[in-house]
């Protein structure tokens, strides 16, 4: 995982993970919307040990630009070994229930764009015969809940898509890792009341790097979300539909 593309590099989880990569001396290509924030993060990662950091400004919605993006990253880093796809928004559920346009946009930002980038990267890594695509999905994608089913449905698409891609690329030596964080204390969730289930971006980042190194398929992070979601996934509908989750 020496040459790494990070999509959504200004997100708290991506930045924390990039610090772990930097400490290992990796070369990084950071993609985000905000050039000032990208360059602040790039300066920091260089001091943290990254052997090279390049940045590119891009809106994740621009699906047609992904082939060009991957070419640029590969050209700057002299090839590509790993990609971390971490961009996304936390959907305002109430607003998305009331607006088809917002629903459409949320699916573009939280599902379609991840799948587009996975497609480009998957084909490239398949051709080169190695590589790892790590995609941040969410425990919210494991089962639709009334409090955030628009976001959850987009993440469910990402989870299903990466599962299929993993099967397809496994014989080719390419790893696809589906990452399912639970509650993470980031600016995205700053106004939420925090309980004991909340993790820091740094804690989540360490588990992501370990999972990449171990060529894992699915990562619930922190680990305790695996038994929690196992239970939630298996609750019978007769009961589940009465819950306020």
């Amino acid at each position, binding site marked *: 995982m020496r040459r790494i593309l990070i999509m959504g590099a*200004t997100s*708290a989880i991506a930045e924390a993970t990039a610090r772990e990569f930097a400490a290992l001396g990796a070369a990084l290509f950071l993609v985000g919307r*905000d050039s*000032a*924030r990208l360059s*602040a*993060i790039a*300066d*920091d990662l260089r*001091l*943290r040990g990254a052997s090279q950091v390049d940045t590119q400004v891009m809106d994740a919605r621009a699906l047609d630009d992904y082939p060009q993006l991957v070419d640029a990253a590969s050209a700057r880093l002299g090839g590509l070994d790993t990609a971390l796809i971490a961009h996304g928004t936390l959907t305002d559920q109430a607003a998305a229930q009331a607006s088809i346009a917002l629903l459409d946009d949320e699916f573009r930002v939280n599902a379609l764009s991840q799948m587009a980038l996975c497609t480009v990267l998957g084909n490239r890594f398949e051709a080169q015969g190695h590589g790892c695509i790590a995609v941040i999905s969410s425990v919210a994608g494991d089962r639709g809940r009334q409090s955030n089913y628009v976001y959850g449905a987009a993440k469910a698409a990402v989870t299903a898509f990466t599962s299929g891609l993993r099967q397809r690329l496994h014989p080719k030596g390419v790893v696809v890792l589906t990452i399912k964080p639970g509650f993470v*204390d*980031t*600016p995205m969730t*700053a*106004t939420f009341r*925090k*309980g*004991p289930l*909340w993790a*820091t971006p740094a804690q989540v980042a360490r588990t992501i790097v370990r999972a990449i190194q171990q060529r894992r398929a699915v990562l619930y992070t922190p680990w305790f979300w695996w038994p929690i979601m196992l239970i939630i996934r298996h609750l019978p509908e007769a009961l589940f539909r009465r819950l306020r989750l």
Partner: protein
Amino acid sequence: MRGSPSWGRLPGAEPQWLAIGSRHQALPERASMLPWGNGRSYGDSCRNDGGVLLAAGALDRYIAFDPATGIIEVEAGVQLAAIIALALPHGWFPAVTPGTRWVTVGGCIANDVHGKNHHRAGSFGHHLLDFELLRSDGTVLHCSPTEHRDWFDATIGGLGLTGLIRRARMQLQRVGGPWLRGDSLRFGSLAEFFALSACSEPDYAYTVAWLDCSASGRHRGRGIFLRANHAPATVAGPQQEAAGRALRLPFTPPLSAVNRLSLRAFNTLYFHRPAAQARERLWHYRPFFYPLDAIADWNRLYGPRGFYQYQCVLPAADAETVLDEMLARIAASGLGSFLVVLKTFGAQRSRGLLSFARPGVTLALDFPNRGAATLALLDALDRLTLDAGGAVYPAKDARMSAAAFQQYFPQWQAFARYIDPKFSSSFWRRVTGSTTA
């Protein structure tokens, strides 16, 4: 995940948080805000009940570091631990460090913190080259000893009230490596402490003493004096000390574990342990500067009611008499703590308008919160400090009266002109008698 916003964990209102994730971000539109770094201030100077706390811990990016000059530029949420991690391998160390490395640079500036080398290095502000201050009207002030100098001086020790510090540049000090070398010496009285301080300060960069606050009668004023210098690069101590295992207090005991019995036992054992008397010994920087960082969340030891810390500075002239009186009252009360620290401050004038450090001697100790009894004792200590012409440290305080504060810091009104109209803290409202958040 976050519990109390302040280290003393005294009961208080549930805080409202807003995160600042980028130094390129504008301040939110709120009527009452207070920057919050890592919550290591003990009392209410890092609380803003009724308003919001701007959680700036995510402003934790390095900006630039020059291993040739030891000048480092960081975002204000970077902690000293992170500066040490980056700079020490290149032979640089913070020029001034308080007793924990889990403090942010913004917090170090806002409280103009001091360390065991105050007699030589002054306080944190003396090593600050410049910083950037964001005001709620969107103005960005670049402050240094030559540019916006009045804002520079108001913000150093300015308790976070002058605006949000976004980035800062400071000069680190050259060191040989992670080790310190010096002596640990028992002393039997305050007179001996002052004599040891006077004879050690010319030769040692760091001096500090631990006092046995439960000792009474002829033992009153006894303690252990530490003095040390950074050791040259060729020196290395035992590996297990360098490894620095960290423990964590995993829960809050239902009652304070600090009581008359445990205090007396701990203090007596600590004073008599063999390591208390050792010459030419080596310390790794972690146990030397940050002994309490080895036990994460040690502040929970005081139970769910939390604790007060009292830190005062007394002018040198009457310091011995006043300290003796303070120790007598503390010992008689049976309140008090494991870690009582005594240290002489140097003559260097602090940079900040509202800085705490001033020539004299400073005493710091914790008191478990036992309600009225604790407050009465602290008020009694305050009267002694006031009469002596001393001052109490705002970063540690949760209870001093407005009258006391205004006498300790007569320049407070001059300072008030620099407060951002949308910034406030529970501390500031308390000590200025203002009621609205």
